């Protein structure tokens, strides 16, 4: 089943690299987020809370990118050329040979300590973003 998900993800990434339209690429990113979320569910049904988490994150992220892309439409429409350096990322392929960790019992609850730490991190990044874009 995971093979199917990998193939879908590969197709979506290819579509993202080949399309010339930033908005279409951002929509593909949403679909890829849902695909990864479904893959987490397939991997371990006990982690089904992660499905909602990942899907929400990527829907929001892709919507933000759609707005930014729509706001900065400059329509150069240069053709995308497949630069050979893009293949350099295939150097990650030997990672496949790593031994898998094997299936363990899932810890399907969130450590409460994460919540304040995440809040602080998000607050920091929002403050940095506001200072960055409004000075």
């Amino acid at each position: 089943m995971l093979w199917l998900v990998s193939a879908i993800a590969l197709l979506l990434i290819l579509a993202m690299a080949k399309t010339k339209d930033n908005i279409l690429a951002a929509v593909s990113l949403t679909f890829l987020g849902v695909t990864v979320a479904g893959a987490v569910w397939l991997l371990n049904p006990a982690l089904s809370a992660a499905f909602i988490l990942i899907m929400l994150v990527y829907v929001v992220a892709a919507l933000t990118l759609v707005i930014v892309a729509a706001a900065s439409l400059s329509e150069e429409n240069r053709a995308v050329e497949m630069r050979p350096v893009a293949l350099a990322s295939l150097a990650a392929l030997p990672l496949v040979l790593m031994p898998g960790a094997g299936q363990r019992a899932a810890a399907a609850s969130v450590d409460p300590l994460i919540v304040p730490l995440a809040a602080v991190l998000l607050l920091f990044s929002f403050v940095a973003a506001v200072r960055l874009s409004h000075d």
Partner: protein
Amino acid sequence: MTELFFLVVLLAGGMAVVAVANSLVRVIIGAEVAIMAGIWGAALSGDLSLVAVAAVVGVAETVLMVAALYRLAKEGYV
């Protein structure tokens, strides 16, 4: 095996999207794909806390990159 293959597809795919990008929005999209590889790696450990941390870091990273892009656009670099 399939899990690791999926991880490499996300990592290599994200970097490839960055490498063939012709706009900064596309660079951010490629970085999002690579962050997704991080989320998948956290999910492989079977711990929901790690997945939550990876998702929160993904949000923070998106916010910072979009703000930087906005700043660059305002100064006329995009």
